[in-house]
Structures are given as C-alpha cells and as structure tokens.
C-alpha cells in the first residue's frame, strides 16, 4: 500500500521521502530522469550548510530553518564535513568584509596567522577574514546518491517515469517536488540561473568552504577531496539552463585565481548550469492545493533547507501540523 507519492527525486523529494519513511510511511518516488544525476538542479549545488553566512543576503527564516541541517544530513548519511567556513576578501575590499561581518553572526575575526593555520594555502594572501566554525558542507552528489540508495534498501519504490501531478487516479497523497519543472503548476515560480565549475587542482589544498568577497564577483570554493574543487556560483535572473556563458566562466576563474594563483593550473573537469526554483521572496513554500502538496522555491538553499522542509512536510502529512512556511492555495 502506498500512502504518499513523491514526484521529483532531487534534494527536496529525497529528503521528504527519507523523513516520511523513517516515520513509518509507505512512500513511492517518481522521477523521469532516474537515479540522482545531471537532470536535477541539486546535482550542481555547492552543498554548503552555512546558515550564518547566508544571513548576509537571505531572510532570517533561512538561518532559522537551516540551523539543524548539518545534524540531519549527518544522521541520515554520515557524509558531513564540519570544518567551518572561512570568508576572506582582498585588502582593497576590506569594506566588503566589514559589511559581511555586520550582517552575520557566529564567527570569529581571524588574522593572517590564524588564516594560515586554518588554510595554509591562503595565509600569505589574506590579512583578515571571518571564520564560521560551526558551519559545514556536504558533497551533494554523494549525499543524493546515499539517500537514494538507503531508500531503495528500505523498500521504497522508485519509478523512472513522468507522473502527471494532477493524476488523481491513485489513492493517497501526492507531494510535488519537481523544482522549476513545476512552473506550469506554480505560476509565480521563477528560475534563477546558476553556473558552476569543477576543477582539479592538486596544487591547492583547502579543507573547508572558502568564500571570497568581491564587489563584482562573489565566489565560493568547496573542496570535494582529492584536489577537486567546486567553484560557484552565478545568480542570473533567467530560467535558461542549457549553457554557461564565456563571461561567467571568465569571472569565476579569475576570482578563483585571485583566491590562489595556483588555480591557474587547474584542470576544468566540468562546467555546469541549471535553474534554481524561487518564489518572489526567495523563500521556500509548502503549498497545499486540494489533495496536492507542493514543496518548492528552495532557491540557492536546497541542501540547507530540505531537512527542515522534510520535517515540516512529514509533520503536516502525519500529524496535520501546519508548518510555518505553509501556503494554503484555494485557487
């Protein structure tokens, strides 16, 4: 017997499936693209579990909802890297660093020597920074694959097919987690294009997420191990998700080069792009419309917010508890 059908096995769909399954619900997952892979927006994510850094430009809700994310991911996958995040800027952009500090919390100011201690490959290049010791990151691809595998082991049925979200022929509840693909159903959803790179650069050793503040090209670098780095990410008001522009590539690479010129010798393993699903306030929604629940609008915070959204969706489905990001739709 299936109690809940989830459409879309990106980060939101998989987290909800995991949470519901752990609470004893029978779950069926649909994804037309199959196992986690390049068809899903979350495949291209940075995987930063950095609620305090995000406070610089995100609403306070993102911080509140994201605070428990690292623990959830560690409990469910054991893959979390919790070495904190380091924020730096070049000397001429110290104003950026001061502003970032004013708008965030839970950090320590670090000087050249402390930066060198944390990240020896950056210490001689930056004289001051902010260290967010309680933040983490996770490799999105490993995390998605681990959730997918564990769900299969627990008997969750995974169906590789398109599923019409309005098809009500089956009994039970349907949860739509299709991200930007749900645009036809959720008319006020928009796409925000993100572009990222994967570099292989054994010459550089970084052990935690590093953010470089720059007036034009803010950048983050997330280590994936074995000298491989994810570099991202642009934010462009466009739903195009097929190509990376030369300009974005140039900007990201030059910012990486500014972080450490050894990135100039890196090999480009991947150039990726997709459209993040977002509502006008860039905050997520759990929207109920008749017998359907839509969980969407995670914007650039898929890995940070999915655990909280999964918990709230499970509370709603199993206990009828109305979540704080609930959005009743009577249309």
């Amino acid at each position, binding site marked *: 017997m299936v109690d809940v059908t989830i459409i879309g096995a990106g980060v939101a769909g998989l987290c909800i499936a995991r949470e519901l399954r752990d609470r004893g619900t029978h779950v069926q997952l649909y994804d037309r693209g199959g196992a986690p892979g390049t068809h899903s927006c979350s495949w291209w994510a940075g995987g930063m579990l950095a609620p305090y850094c995000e406070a610089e430009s995100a609403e306070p809700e993102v911080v509140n909802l994201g605070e428990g994310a690292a623990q959830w991911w560690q409990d469910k996958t054991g893959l979390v890297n919790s070495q904190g995040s380091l924020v730096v800027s070049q000397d001429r952009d110290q104003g950026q660093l001061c502003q970032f500090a004013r708008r965030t919390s839970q950090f320590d100011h670090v000087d050249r020597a402390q930066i060198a201690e944390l990240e020896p490959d950056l210490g001689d290049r930056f004289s001051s920074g902010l260290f967010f010791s309680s933040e983490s990151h996770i490799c999105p691809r490993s995390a998605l694959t681990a959730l997918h595998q564990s769900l299969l082991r627990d008997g969750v049925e995974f169906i590789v097919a398109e599923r019409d979200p309005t098809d009500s022929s089956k009994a039970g509840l349907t949860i739509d987690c299709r991200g930007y693909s749900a645009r036809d159903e959720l008319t006020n959803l928009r796409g925000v294009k993100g572009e990222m790179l994967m570099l292989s650069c054994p010459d550089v050793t970084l052990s935690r997420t590093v953010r470089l503040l720059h007036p034009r090209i803010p950048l983050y670098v997330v280590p994936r191990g074995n000298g491989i780095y994810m570099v991202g990410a642009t934010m*462009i008001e466009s739903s195009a998700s097929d190509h990376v*522009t030369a300009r974005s590539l140039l900007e990201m690479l030059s910012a990486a080069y500014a972080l450490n010129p050894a990135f100039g010798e890196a090999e480009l393993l991947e150039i990726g792009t997709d459209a993040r699903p*977002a509502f006008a306030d860039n905050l997520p929604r759990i929207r109920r419309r008749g017998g359907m629940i839509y969980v969407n609008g995670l914007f650039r915070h898929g890995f940070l917010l999915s655990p909280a959204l999964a918990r709230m969706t499970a509370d709603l489905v199993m206990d009828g508890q109305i979540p704080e990001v609930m959005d009743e739709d009577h249309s």
Partner: protein
Amino acid sequence: MPVFYDTKIASRLMLGTAQYPSPAILAEAFKRSGAGIATVSVRREAGGERAGQDFWDLIADLGVKVLPNTAGCHSVREAVTTAQMARELFDTPWIKLEVIGHADTLQPDPFGLVEAARILTEDEFQVFPYCTEDLVLCDRLIEAGCRVLMPWGAPIGTGLGLNNVYGLRSLRAHFPDVPLVVDAGLGLPSQAAQAMELGYDAVLLNTAVAKAGDPAAMAEGFARALEAGRLAFEADPMEPRDMAAPSTPILGKAFLA
C-alpha cells in the same frame, strides 16, 4: 517633476533592478520610495529565447515606466544590438545607453557613446546616454539627438557621491532646458540631495539601495532626500559668505564692549 521625451514622470528617483536580495524586496523598495522608472539590464539577464521573462514580468508588475539599458556593453555594435533587442522585448523606444570604455573603472567610452547615440537616434530610439560630466561630450550627445543627459556622479557602484561638483554645476548652467540625471556613483541620500540642490532633474541609482542592509528603507531615505534637495533648489538658497551675520537684532546691545 521631470519630463523625458515628452513623458512626465511622477518621481525624481530612478532605480536599477539588479543585486537585490529578492524580487519581493525590490518591489518593496519601489513601493516605499515611489520611484518612477525602473532600469533593467537586457544583456546580462537575457540568455536568449526570453529566458528572463519571469523576472521581466515581475518588473512589469511594479507598474512603473521601464527603461531598458545596455549595461555591460563594451562596443558600439554590442550596444546597438542590445538596444534593438530591448526594444523588441519591452516594446519601448527608450534606451539607457551604456558603452563602457574601461573594464576597471567602468567609465563611459565617450567616443563610442556619441557614435552609438547617433545610430540609435536615427533608428528612432529615445536615448538616455550614461556619460561623464564633460561639457563637450554632452554637447556632442545633444547634437547626436539625445534629449536627456545622464552624467555620472562617480564610477558605477562606488558610492563616492558627486566627484566633480564644478563640472555638474557647469552642465546645469549650459543646458538649462535639457533634463539632467545624475547616474551612478551615489552611496547616500545626502549625495542625492546635493544633486537636487544643483538643480538636477532626477537621480538613477542601484547598488546604494540594493546592497543596503534594508533596501526598502534606504530607497525611502533617497526619496525623502530628493524631496528635500529639490525643495531647497526651488526655494533659492542663500549664497555662502565669509562674514558672519547675526540672525537676531543686535541694536541696543553693547556688542563693542
């Protein structure tokens, strides 16, 4: 209130639409400030095939006049092509013309700007040129058919305010009947008020509002400063002078004692 190409605008504030934390905050900034014109970058957000449509729909919902721009264009040809694309997308002859001449300072290329302005005016565009405060350049832009001038206050995104007050005042004096807009470089409402005190018709800004901790509050701050500065301009301010002059009568007091 300013009139651009025979269109009357109900506000002296023009706002860019990039870099806000979210479109909802962008909309709130417009609402609280009453800004009358929204500039939109076509080149950066387009991606072809109307992929930016979701965002442009949000801009259209603001209910203000849209001024598409050629931000990010470094050559005449790029700027002209982008302007033509903008006309198609937004169904308006208005174009804020940027031809960037230097990658670091983002200052306008005056030579390319005049050439592009001429081409676009002949093609029946109504051009809003982003220029420097150079008087001769502004003369050439008027000759090329521009009926608005948008000199910078300081380089884009720097927040340095009015770097050359003498030059800006001189422009106002030489072009008493051309709408003048300070475009770029403003960081604080007091700087916008100063532009009004010089008799400018409007200001255009983006970063100062979008990157403020509370963009909507900052937008309102700018709107109020513009009102204050304009009132001051219309009130014919006193001339500064070196000698102190008491504002209360001194007759009968032994001030020479």
